[in-house]
């Protein structure tokens, strides 16, 4: 069967999954940086795969410079999520620069999808910037407890305006944890407004790097009213799907 490599060139990270047959033998993740082509070429050399499929925002970079086949991240996420959760019908991905909600039919084929228009509101980049503003590491940001009681509101979804809102909340003496919770709620609301436009059926899978954020997951579960599954390595969903595409089509 040989080795299949799937590369997901995202706006923040490049993720690569190497399969021997259908067995996962290696995972790599590097920052996309200012020269993603160079990073990809190094990955290609190191893995010496027989077949390569690229996906993600930067996929065409590889298509232009090599004869590597590409598929969209929508299709790649559908394949990858299905491999991790065979009964998956709905995928939510909060990516670096876009949010995706994908609905699959029973056979795993993409039935409908929603993606945000040109705006970084509520994306992974937004989460990252807001964590930084509040002095959290990205790993700790999702550990903020889900409290009940009076809530702070972040009304602006625009990254730039939300940042100034956060700064004025800090200036008013609001608790850091409360602001963090409010930011997570605002991202969740953004995702939910898109999720409402596709049928949300179980199993619902939260994929992509932001799925590591436990608070987002809990808020999504509460918002959807359904259980939301997260894989052990949610960030490789797209790369895995691309690698599998070679094998299963």
């Amino acid at each position, binding site marked *: 069967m040989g080795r299949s490599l799937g590369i997901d060139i995202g706006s923040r990270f490049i993720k690569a999954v190497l399969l021997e047959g259908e067995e996962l033998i290696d995972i790599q993740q590097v920052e996309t940086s200012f020269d993603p082509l160079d990073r990809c070429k190094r990955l290609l050399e190191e893995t010496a795969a027989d077949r390569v499929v690229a996906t993600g*925002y930067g996929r*065409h970079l590889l298509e232009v410079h090599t004869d590597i086949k590409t*598929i*969209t*991240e*929508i*299709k790649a996420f559908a394949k990858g999520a299905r491999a991790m959760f065979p009964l998956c019908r709905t995928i939510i991905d909060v990516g670096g*620069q*876009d949010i995706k909600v994908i609905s699959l039919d029973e056979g795993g*084929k*993409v*039935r*409908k*999808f929603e*993606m*945000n*228009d*040109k705006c970084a509101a509520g994306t992974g980049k937004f989460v990252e910037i807001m964590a930084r503003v509040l002095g959290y590491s990205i790993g700790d940001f999702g550990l903020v407890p889900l409290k009940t009681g009076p809530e702070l509101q972040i009304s602006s979804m625009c990254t730039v305006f939300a940042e100034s809102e956060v700064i004025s909340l800090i200036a008013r003496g609001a608790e850091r944890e409360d602001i963090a919770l409010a930011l997570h709620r605002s991202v969740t609301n953004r995702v939910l407004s898109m999720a409402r436009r596709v049928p949300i059926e179980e199993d619902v899978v939260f994929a992509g790097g932001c799925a590591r954020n436990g608070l987002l997951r809990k808020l999504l579960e509460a918002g959807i009213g359904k259980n939301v599954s997260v894989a052990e390595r949610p960030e490789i969903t797209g790369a895995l799907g691309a690698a599998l595409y070679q094998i299963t089509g």
Partner: protein
Amino acid sequence: MNGKDYTKMWEGLGLNIENHAGLLGVLTNAYKDIYLSQNNRPAAMEYFDFVISEVHGLRIEEIIAAKEAGRKVVGTFCVYVPEEIVLAADGLCIGLCAGAEVGSEEAEKFIPRNTCALIKAFMGFKLSGLCPYVETTDLIVGETTCDGKKKAYESFNEITKKVYVMEIPHMKTDEDKKLWLSEVKRFKDRIEGLSGKKLTVDALKKGASVANEKRKALQRLSRLRAADPAPISGLDALLVNQVSFYDDPLRFTSMTHKLCDELSDRASKGTGVADKGAPRILISGSPMAIPNWKLHAIIEGSGAVVVGEESCIGERNHRDLVDESFSSVDDAMEKISSRYLGIDCACFTPNTERLDNIKALVERLGADGVIHYSLQFCTPYMMESYKVEKAVTEVPFMRIETDYSMEDFGQLKTRVEAFIEMIQ
């Protein structure tokens, strides 16, 4: 360009020569990248390539010559302006520049930032001295289709001093029909005043016939696109529709038929621009004014083919003919006004006939998917896209909101490619 230097002519029109050269440079490059790189283009597209290369040259020279011969030039932004009345007075009816991101900063001195790209562009083109057509006009006709245009025409009139506005009703009751008929008559009077010609039945018949023949040629093009494989790319067909708004109508009609002869030959031989079975997309929504080729370029660059435009630059412009069997000027006004009130613009409420027309088009063109295209801030079409989504049940549907800028090119490409993957 045919190498001729038009600088003197452009200076005479008061264009900003330096910026204009920049604009033509960008346009030439975009045309090369998007159009001339296509495979298997019909040979008859050569004429349209030539027209584009002379879009601000030879055609403007022709218009200026016509003016010198005493003919009047009427600029428009909408398919509701009754072209046959302008033609009856031996006038030239020209769709004005509104399809590129030009002069936004200048435009934003008059209109808010969150105005649709088309409105911003017509203000921007004029304010930055980049549209030779607007400078040749004797009259610019506006209309009360959407709020954005309606209010922008007030500013446009301050700037140009030659805007005339037609009141388009927003419903289609008997009272609205009366209003529109009186607006068509008022327009005829205005054109008579402008041209100094009293419009006779014969003149109106001639005008109606020229306009109808042009529409028939475009209808024929639309019908030929139903063939699989598609005999012409969506980009090329869009271009022909865009050119129909400013070319000489008689010449345009004959060149479009020539193109259609070739396409008809292709269809009978089963040859085309894409493989048989390539995904076929119907575009529905806001108009794509020249040189707005963004969405078509993305779709056709992703392996699908656009088979129709349910749009003002497309079906809405040519679907209905005017009944030429009138016997008096009043009768002509009745027939012309009723032809125009049949147009299914999203500014009307209700506008259910548009949904029926879209469904019929999907069927007639054998479309595998519908992409609803709205210009950002184009509220009427954005609103209706939700109804279209519900009405299109037979094939997949996707809604896109965008403008003329290229910053969302990557995101749009991902969405379009995923949509095509879904269809395949």
